[in-house]
């Protein structure tokens, strides 16, 4: 049977002289500490979401604990405000790395009116900020791969060196849009990176029932692009794979498929009970694959992270989260009078006292006929 092994990405090696950690991939100590900080902040933000949910302050959480190593590593070499990120609901650490602030993330959890992602219209996890080149997330999985491909196609036509990176779960990669997007990118050799964050489950469905192959990366060969597997607890290997793919794309050498093997440290979402379908053993072993302690130990072994720096970082992360939470919580809910806005670009906003909009329409309510009022414009 014709099977292929995807190019196994080099594991990052602990250098002979541990104090040179990262040097082989061009990362300084400051970079490494910054990456660790990003992971710590992402984790702190993420943990807070779950606390807020248990405290009944936000009805729904979906997040990325366990994915932070891959996310920070892969995104660290992107150019903020220049490249494009097309995320998914677990992308907390990717987004923080790409410049989205904890306040902005918390606004989405509280669905406040000033939430830049959607003004409180979307569920938490559906981020997107146009000023940061972060595309708006929807719920149907895999659609975003085509959007990322389209952005990359535009980059190529416009002859810019913008790189687009997009993310998807391993389960979602079995949607048709995955095939169609990668094929188009392969045909036109587009500057796009497809990251599959493989945490072994699609809600409850394990890899064995989900995918005909254990490694999604093997599919890269079918689209004439490298298929690279990385271990999500090996932050430096993730960085290296990300940077290589970003550099390739920027040089016009085409797309890359990267599969990051990660663990899902939480349930799928706050609506999920994972003990129903995961054994205690499976859950326990996941904990050994938490990228935070692994990377911390690496930094400690390299003499880059002492107790004090770490304590400061933790305190700082806590402060950032505290601030983001309090601030976001204090913002106002959206005004229902704005709910009908932004359906179309060019139609005048309807009035909230219009019975059409309160759901009771009746002959003689007057005004111009309904449909041309069926949406608000930008006003």
């Amino acid at each position, binding site marked *: 049977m014709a099977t292929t092994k995807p190019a196994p990405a080099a594991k990052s090696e602990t250098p002979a002289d541990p104090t040179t950690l990262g040097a082989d991939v061009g990362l300084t100590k400051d970079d490494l500490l910054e990456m660790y900080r990003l992971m710590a902040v992402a984790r702190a933000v993420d943990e807070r979401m779950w606390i807020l949910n248990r405290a009944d302050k936000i009805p729904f959480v979906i997040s990325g604990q366990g994915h932070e190593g891959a996310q920070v590593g892969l995104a660290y070499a992107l150019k903020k405000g220049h490249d494009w990120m097309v995320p998914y609901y677990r992308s907390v650490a990717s987004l923080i790395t790409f410049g989205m602030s904890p306040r902005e993330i918390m606004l989405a959890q509280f669905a406040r009116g000033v939430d830049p992602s959607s003004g409180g219209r979307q569920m938490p996890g559906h981020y997107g900020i146009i000023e940061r080149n972060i595309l708006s997330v929807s719920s149907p999985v895999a659609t975003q791969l085509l959007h990322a491909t389209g952005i990359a196609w535009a980059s190529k036509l416009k002859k810019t060196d913008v790189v687009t990176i997009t993310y998807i779960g391993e389960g979602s990669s*079995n949607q048709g849009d995955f095939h169609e997007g990668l094929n188009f990118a392969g045909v036109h050799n587009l500057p796009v990176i497809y990251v599959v964050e493989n945490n072994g489950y699609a809600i409850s469905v394990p890899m064995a029932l989900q995918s005909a192959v254990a490694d999604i990366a093997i599919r890269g060969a079918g689209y004439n692009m490298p298929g690279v597997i990385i271990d999500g607890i090996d932050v430096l290997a993730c960085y290296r794979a990300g940077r290589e793919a970003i550099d390739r794309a920027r040089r016009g050498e085409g797309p890359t498929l990267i599969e990051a093997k990660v663990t899902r440290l939480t349930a799928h979402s706050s609506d999920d009970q994972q003990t129903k379908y995961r054994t205690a053993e499976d859950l326990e072993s996941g904990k050994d694959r938490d990228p935070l302690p692994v990377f911390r130990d690496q930094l400690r072994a390299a003499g880059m992270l002492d107790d004090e720096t770490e304590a400061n970082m933790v305190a700082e992360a806590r402060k950032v989260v505290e601030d983001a939470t309090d601030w976001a919580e204090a913002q106002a809910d959206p005004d229902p009078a704005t709910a009908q806005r932004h359906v179309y670009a060019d139609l005048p906003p309807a009035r909230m006292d219009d019975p059409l909009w309160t759901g009771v329409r009746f002959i003689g309510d007057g005004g111009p006929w309904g449909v041309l009022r069926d949406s608000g414009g930008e006003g």
Partner: protein
Amino acid sequence: MAVMTFIESVRTTLAQEMRRDDSIVVLGEDVGKKGGVFLATDGLYDEFGGDRVLDTPLSESMIVGVSIGAAVAGLRPVPEIQFADFIFPAFNQILSEAARMRFRSNGAFTCPITLRAPYGGGVHGALYHSQSVEAFFAHIPGLKVVIPSTPYDARGLLRTSIRDNDPVLFFEHKKMYRSVRGDVPDDDYTIPIGQAKVTREGTDVTLIAYGLMAQYSLEAAELLASDGVSAEVVDVRTLRPLDGETLLASVRKTGKAVVVYEDNRFGGYGAEIAAIVAEEAFESLDGPIVRVTGPDVPGVPYNHVLEDWFMPNPERIAEAARRLAAY
């Protein structure tokens, strides 16, 4: 006779049917070990095993397309789409394939599939976990579309759907899963597809609805009664084929119709009901045909103040009926 929730009715009916007929298979995302994200298939995996209760890969076109093939080969698949909002990747398979197999083969091939999906808003599900999708499917000849509003009807209609020889879309309002309870007899009763039901008799105005809105219309009728307005409520139950007789008879009696649906108004399912009434019961009409619907925005927003703004509710229905009654 047991009292049970709406979702218990769905779940127990699935189990009973699977015991009755070995050719029934349930498939979908998370329907197995997890028992479905709403637990509509809870326990089926333990009882019937992984062959007949299959956790599929995350691809809806595949779920429907494989069900079509399996149905052609003699199985009776009961696929689940996790949320009706996620049915669209399978739209082509449903419209171009399942709905047309019989017609295009001049009656040779059939597609006995019952596709279940939870739909509807009011549960903080936002744009992509709240949608009403029935208008798209009720427009498609070859499909049957069923939306029950009580545990009793859920059982009777789910049985009929599974035993039916055509593709049936069976939509369950997710807000009703645990909030609506009712009597469900133990016997093997069925409810024919194509029969609406007068769920409350009245003389002044007819409220026509289905799903959660059929429940809300009953609540609205209560509100109206205290104002001295006598509302008749017709629960459509099967949207295609539609039982025009029953709803026309009611409108001919009251002379006034309020059509209620949660979906956005323009081109929604209730437009067809209004068109039918305007065509067939024109001579009996004593007032315009009024629609109470969701507003024409691309989805139910998440934040509760926005969601409340979106959702039709008993007060809004009653308000429209009150004004129509006074017309």
